[in-house]
C-alpha cells in the first residue's frame, strides 16, 4: 500500500522526542537570549510525557498518534509553545482523519492544517520571528514538491529543508509576537527557538519516512 502509515507517525513522534531531548540545552539557550530560557525544558517535558503515553497506547492510525501528541503536549508543556504546537498536532490529526495511510496530498494537507492551527491561535504572521516562520515555508515547499509530482517522502523532505532555512531566516528579524517582542530591536540577531524546534520536528517527520 502506498503512503505513510501509523509506523511512520509513531516513528516521527519518537524521533521528535529524541531530537528535542538532544537539543534541550540549545533550545533553552536560544530562548535565554530573547525569551525566558525554558523552551528546551518545556518541549522536553512534553515529549517525555508523549513517549510515556505512547508506551501504554497503540494508536491505530497516523491521526490517532498525532492526537495523542496533541493532547499530551497541551496538558504538559504549558507556556506559549504548548498550546501552539498542541493545536498544530491536533489540527494535523483532524486533517489526517481516520486514514490508515497518508499520501503526498494528505501530508501536505496535514502540514497546512497544523500551520493554520498555529496561526489561528497565536495570530502571528510571517516575519514576526516565531515558529510560523518555520512552518509557513515548510508548507509552501511541501505544496511545491507535491505540484512537481513528489510523493509523501519528497514532500516531507522539502518541508524539512524549508523549515530549516526558515528558522535560520528568523535571525535578522525583529520579533513582533511572543516574549521576544518585548525586546524590540534587541531581538534581532538571534534565532527564534520555536522556529528551530519546529524545524527539528519536521526533519524528524522526514527522517521517519525511511522506517515508515
Amino acid at each position, binding site marked *: 500500500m502506498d503512503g505513510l502509515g501509523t509506523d511512520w507517525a509513531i516513528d516521527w513522534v519518537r524521533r521528535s522526542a529524541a531530537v528535542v531531548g538532544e537539543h534541550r540545552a540549545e533550545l*533553552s539557550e536560544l530562548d*535565554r537570549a*530573547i*525569551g*525566558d*530560557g*525554558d523552551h528546551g*525544558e*518545556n518541549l522536553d*517535558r512534553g515529549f517525555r510525557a508523549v513517549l510515556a503515553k505512547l508506551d501504554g497506547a497503540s494508536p491505530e492510525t497516523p491521526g490517532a498518534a498525532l492526537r495523542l501528541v496533541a493532547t499530551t503536549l*497541551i*496538558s*504538559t*508543556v*504549558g*507556556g*506559549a*509553545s*504548548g*498550546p*501552539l504546537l498542541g493545536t498544530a498536532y491536533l489540527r494535523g490529526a483532524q486533517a489526517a482523519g481516520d486514514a490508515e495511510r497518508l499520501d503526498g496530498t494528505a501530508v501536505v494537507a496535514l502540514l497546512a492544517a497544523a500551520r493554520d492551527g498555529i496561526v489561528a*491561535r*497565536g495570530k502571528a504572521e510571517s516575519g514576526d520571528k516565531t515558529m510560523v516562520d518555520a512552518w509557513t515555508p515548510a508548507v509552501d515547499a511541501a505544496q511545491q514538491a507535491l505540484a512537481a509530482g513528489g510523493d509523501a517522502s519528497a514532500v516531507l523532505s522539502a518541508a524539512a529543508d524549508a523549515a530549516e532555512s526558515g528558522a535560520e531566516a528568523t535571525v535578522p528579524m525583529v520579533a*513582533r*509576537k*511572543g*516574549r521576544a*517582542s*518585548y*525586546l*524590540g530591536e*534587541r531581538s534581532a540577531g538571534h534565532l527564534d527557538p520555536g522556529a528551530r524546534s519546529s524545524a527539528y520536528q519536521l526533519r524528524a517527520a522526514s527522517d521517519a519516512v525511511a522506517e515508515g
Partner: protein
Amino acid sequence: MKKLIRDPQTVVKDSLAGFAAAHPGLVRVQTDPDYVVRADAPVRGKVGLVSGGGSGHEPLHAGFVGYGMLDAAVPGAVFTSPTPDPILEATKAVDGGAGVLHIVKNYTGDVLNFETAAELAAAEDVQVESVVVDDDVAVKDSLYTAGRRGVAGTVLVEKIAGAAAERGDDLAAVAAVARKVNDRARSMGVALTAPVVPHAGVPSFDISDHEVEIGIGIHGEPGRERIEWEPVDGLVQRLMTPILEDLPFTSSDDVLLFVNGMGATPLVELYIVYDAAASILRERNIQVSRSLVGNFVTSLDMQGCSITLLQLDDELKALWDAPVETAALRWGR
C-alpha cells in the same frame, strides 16, 4: 548553582508542600494537577477568582489566596504558564454558583492556556469571564505585537477584584472592577541582576557590575535598554516618566504608589526607591493616598524593583481598604 532546593525538577511541588504545611487554616493544596484553593472553597454565591502563571514570582499567586482576594492559584513550572488541566480543575473547585473570573497576565502562554481552560469550563457549564492584565509600560502596545506584559499591577487587580467579589458583586461587576484597575494601573521595572532559573543554573542574562537593565519583565527577559548604573533618583526618574506619561497621571490625581521588589533587593533599598518616587509625585502635585512596599511580584532571585501607580477613586480606595486575609497580604482580620 546553589539554591535551597531538593532538585530543580521538584521545586514547585516541594514549595507547594511547604506552603500547605505552613498555612493549613488558610488554603488547601491539591496535587496532580497542582493548584491552591481557599480552605473554604467553593464559597456559595460568591464569584470565584482564579489566577495563575509560571512559578518563580512568589508570593504571586498562591500567597494571595484567601478571604478577600483569590479563591485559587494555579502555579506552572518556573516561568512557564500552567497547562489548561489544573486551571480547569481550579476553576471548577471554586465555582460557588456565581461564576469564575480568570485573572491572566498578558503573556502568550498564559493567555492561550487560560483560554483553553475557560472553553473547557464553559463546556462543563461553569460561567467564566477573563481579565487580561497588561500594566507594563516598558513594552509598546499595538495590535501587531504581543502587547504589554502583566507585571506587579496584577496584585492590585487581585486585591481589589477580590474585595468586590467578597462584597457580593456579580461576575460582570467583578470583571468590570478588575478591568478598571488594570486600565488605571501602570508599571515599569529595573533590574540590577538576572534571576537564576533552577533548571538552567545560570543567570537568565549577563550583566556587568556597573550596568542596569531598564524596562525588564519578571521572567528574566532582558529589558528595553541597558545603561550604566546611576544613583537611585535617576533610575527612578527613568521608571516614573514613562509611567506618568502613559495614563497620563496628572496634577491633583490621587494614587496608590507601589514599590515592588524583584526578590533579592533589600527592603532598605525599596524604601529609598519609595522616597525617590514620592518626591517626584510631590513635585507634580500628585497625591499618594495608599502605598505598598515589598516583594510581591518577584522574579526569583533577581535584584531590582518595579514601580506601579494606580489612579484611585473612592470605590477603589474602599475596595483596597477592605479586609483581606492571605499568606502575603493581610489586614482587617
